[in-house]
């Protein structure tokens, strides 16, 4: 039997991009399902007791709005990194990734501030347990994003400046995180 003709070794076809897109789909399913259950429990609580937010608990609106605005910054910085890398502008790429990481840390800090200001214990009822579950999941996704930014930055600094796919994937991740937080912001912090 003859051998099949050999092709040149194929370059991986946007593996990072496709992988990140699938991860984003999983993240959206995760948060979407949690928000759906949140909305269901909220409606049932309002139907039975007349309120969802526990008595004496106030949602601090300033830091939650600041987080939403910060995500605009994260998206801009993520896209700036892509834009700079495509022009081989190494200093600006690194600066953009650094800014992304910095704002991500600020978001985590602001979320921690929200926890302190609300003063809820996880055992203070259904609202508290669900609040910590959904915002805790958001924090986990933030930390994963921060690790993603750090890895992308180190790869770029380490000399793999031709590999721009990871920067595009990185920007997609943060776009998705922005959409996810916007949904959490609206359902958890605005409609309460």
């Amino acid at each position, binding site marked *: 039997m003859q051998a099949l003709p050999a*092709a040149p070794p194929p370059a*991986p076809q946007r593996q990072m991009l496709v992988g990140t897109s*699938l991860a984003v789909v999983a993240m959206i*399913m995760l948060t979407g399902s949690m928000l759906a*259950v949140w909305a269901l429990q909220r409606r049932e609580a309002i139907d039975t007791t007349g309120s969802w937010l526990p008595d004496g608990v106030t949602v601090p609106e300033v830091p939650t709005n600041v987080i939403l605005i910060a995500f605009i910054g994260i998206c801009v910085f993520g896209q700036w990194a892509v834009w700079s890398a495509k022009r081989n502008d190494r200093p600006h790429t690194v600066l953009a990734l650094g800014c992304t990481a910095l704002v991500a840390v600020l978001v985590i800090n602001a979320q921690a501030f929200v926890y302190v200001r609300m003063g809820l214990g996880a*055992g203070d009822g259904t609202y508290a*347990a*669900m609040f910590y579950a959904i915002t805790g*999941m958001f924090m986990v996704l933030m930390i994963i994003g921060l690790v993603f930014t750090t890895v992308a930055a180190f790869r770029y600094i380490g000399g793999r400046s031709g590999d721009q796919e990871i920067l595009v994937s990185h920007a997609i991740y943060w776009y998705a995180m922005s959409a996810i937080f916007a949904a959490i912001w609206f359902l958890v912090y605005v409609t309460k």
Partner: protein
Amino acid sequence: MTTIESTPDAEVTAVSDHDADTSSMLEPIAGVFTSTDHKVTGRLYLAGGLLGLVATVVINVLIGVERLDGVDTVLGFEILPQLLDAQRIGLVFATLLPLAMAGCIAAVPLQLGARSVAFPRLASAGFWMWFGGAILTTLALLNNGGTLGEDADAVALFIAGMGLMAVGLTASAGSVATSILTTRAPGMTLRRIPPFSWSALVFSIGVILVMPVLLGTLAYLFLDHRNARTGFGGNEGIFTWAGWIVSQPVTFLFAIPAIGMLAELVPVVFGRRMPLRGVMFSGLGLVGVAALAGVTQQNIQNLPWSGDANDVETKVRDLVPFLLFNALPILGVLLVLLVVLQTARPDDSTRFNYSPGVLFALFGFGMILVGMLGNILHAADDLDLQGTVFDEAALLYVVYGAVLAAMGAIIHWAPKLWGGKFSSAVSGLALLGVAGTILAAFPLYIAGFLDQPAGIAYDNDDLLLWNVISLAGHGLMALTVLGFIALLLGSLRGDRSVGDDPWDAQTLEWTTTSPAPRDNFVDVPVVHSAEPLLDLKSASNDGSNA
């Protein structure tokens, strides 16, 4: 290594012969733990799935023995609720999912002409997370955890273990889906990928859609259970909120690779190119509609069948959502069956090259179809089947059917995975397995119609006969599984000179050596059709005739 900062020369001097022996013994083990070879990861999933299958079959036998007396306990167990949890978790999470994932990770890159799976470390990490989660879940069940457990810590551990398994399976599914979308050989368009690879794509995307929904729910359940226990109903709420993952129709989604296996093997057996590939692809895609059950977190979509008999509009309104939810997967399976029959249609070019794998795949396909049909009846309110053992019967049909198909896949790809071939006696196990599946599940369909409640206890003596037959079926299935594992071990130690293409097959994995080397292919081949090896054989025949 005997000291921390020794030079290589000093190490050589210090290492005794005994140490060298130990080192050479540990190296392969360490290699398995740290390997990024997709075939190793696939074999690990396979070993885990077979281990889970053995444990689950034993649990099913124990439950069957307990049902010999509908009122009193037979074995004197105090952990009957945990047995029922272990049955469902074992069937889906310890058997169905790892076996499906094993086939996807081990065989798909070979079929695609890829040197590796995409993100191999992610696939491997996924396995270890699944494995760790399975161990945690087992420990929790053994310590009075589970959905009806009385030990709060063990219940929390049960939820955490389930979550860890969900994360691991999602990670591995991401790796499989990315491989299929990005690492195909040159010329292999998505329309040209083999049927099993297509089923793996639908399955893995389905897992990516469904498992995060489970994870989110488990996060709520965990925090609620550890704290207030007011929002989700405590322990019993676990099954209410997360039970859909171990029920129909979402299990159809996990059985898709088993359905794809028949479509993969029939063209090989009949030596023909598969016609109507688009229809077959659509069929497998339609089965993926079962993901709706996961996305909506429902395990039941009732058929209310309300309104007057002459009120056609109301009837149609009842039927449409019901059929969309429950009947589309069956339509998908029937489309696959149509293409399979078309491929097997006798004509001048037909030949029959029997492979035992196809017998397993055919029986598995049939059993899954019967499970799907049962699920339609289960969802119809007027039949009063909900809350009976009918649902368990449908689950057994689907999972045992998928197990049979997985055995077919193992027989088929054993030459590529470890260079062995099963003894011809394995065909008998297919008959034993299908008999075991029917005997284990069908009596429970009847018992469901006779209102035997789900669980173990019942108070109607007429039900004893059906439970005895079901126990015999589980016994036959246990024999099938043990026999298969014995033959598998025999193939590992037996003759390794099976040849590169022992089945006279059509797809790329049969162009490389048996077993496949570390990077699968020395040269990545160019593909010009959906059956590249058949092209090559035709060209060789034409050349020799000329």
